[in-house]
């Protein structure tokens, strides 16, 4: 880390080895204004958020830059669940639910985002790429013509969130039966079993047995009454 007392010159070395900064620069060169936001944890990990329109272009650019190993694609729903999280104490007062949509690392503007991970096997570095999914049309471009493995991941993302993928050859359900209604991983999809009988939380299963009151006078000879 740069010396905090050194105020008259720019720190020469970035906290890290410059590898991930170089990847960002390379991507900016290839797709220009498509890169919206980035986040680096030094020597550890890299996040890049791109414009929705540049989603497929990013895949092609990164594949050309050496990120040839595809890891996964999935979605994020940033709305806090209206049903609360199940671990709060049901006997206590219900807390005021937080309804503000706050996106995480690298920000965002929409409730839903898609994110993917690609790995460069030669430089041993991975990158997480995110993009907003606009409300209308609720879709992004498909990666299945860039990475063949994206096919299944996009099917799963579609059935769980409802996000469309333009250009996907066959967007049907992966896990759920064909007649399943609803998109399970959205936060407003309730888990019915929890609504019928909420989880009791940390309970004392068996309370201690009630101790009998100790008698003041000595016990009388207790024979059966005749």
């Amino acid at each position, binding site marked *: 880390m740069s010396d905090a007392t050194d105020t008259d010159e720019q720190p020469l070395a970035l906290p890290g080895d410059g590898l991930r900064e170089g990847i960002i620069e390379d991507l900016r060169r290839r797709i220009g204004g498509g890169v919206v936001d980035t986040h680096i944890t030094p020597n550890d990990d890299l996040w890049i958020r791109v414009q929705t329109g540049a989603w497929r272009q990013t895949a092609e650019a990164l594949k050309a830059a050496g990120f040839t190993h595809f890891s996964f694609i999935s979605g994020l729903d940033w709305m806090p669940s209206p049903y609360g999280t*199940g671990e709060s104490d049901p006997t206590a007062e219900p807390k005021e639910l937080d309804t503000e949509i706050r996106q995480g690392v690298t920000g965002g503007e929409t409730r839903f985002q898609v994110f993917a991970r690609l790995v460069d096997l030669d430089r041993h570095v991975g990158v997480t790429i995110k993009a907003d999914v606009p409300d209308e049309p609720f879709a992004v471009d498909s990666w299945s013509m860039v990475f063949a493995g994206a096919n299944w991941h996009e099917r799963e993302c579609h059935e769980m969130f409802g996000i469309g993928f333009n250009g996907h050859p066959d967007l049907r359900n992966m896990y*759920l*039966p064909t007649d399943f209604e609803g998109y*399970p991983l959205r936060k407003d*999809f309730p*888990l*019915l*079993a*929890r609504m019928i009988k909420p989880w009791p939380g940390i309970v004392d299963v068996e309370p201690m047995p009630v101790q009998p009151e100790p008698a003041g006078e000595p016990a009388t000879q207790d024979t059966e009454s005749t």
Partner: protein
Amino acid sequence: MGLVDRGRMPAPLTKLFNMSRSYSLWVYQWGLACCAIEMGAAFGSPRYDVMRLGVIPLPASPRQADFVCISGTVTDKMAPAVKRLWEQMPEPKYAISMGSCANCGGPYWDSYSVTKGVDQIIPIDVYVPGCPPRPEALLEGIVLLQQRIKNEDMAAKWRGDEFTTQQATRERERIAAAPAISAPAIPDREPIVVGGGPIE
């Protein structure tokens, strides 16, 4: 045999048949998830060998099986297959539900795609709890099933009654043959209680 369904099987023959049935069970392993591995360890490994109990593990098809051991999570997508399997098995058939997922949904009790207990689909004879149950627990479940078979009333099983043990049949016959409960007899004289004291 006409003797079985008419309930006219003599008792020593019933005992012999029940005992021989319970010691030659062919089990269909319907292993779905983690419990399938413990079931495999119980049935296939030399340590918790199940063949010494008289239970043979690998039938060629469900149509040749005596009982089915459903181990692992049953999802809603898989449930029709379980039902179809149960219908394929010939009577007399039994079912053991192994593991908490098959008993009641288990750790996935609140999931949107898990059937909360396979007894919603097929009737179960023995529940073996655990996550996963040790192979010894499954073997105890099988031994309990064997005891149930030994105590079974074959006519009741043939008819498809809910309770098929011989005790249940005896209880049912006792209730059917018992005289109706009559009103208490009115005593000839009223007991007179003057100043308390024991009643004559």
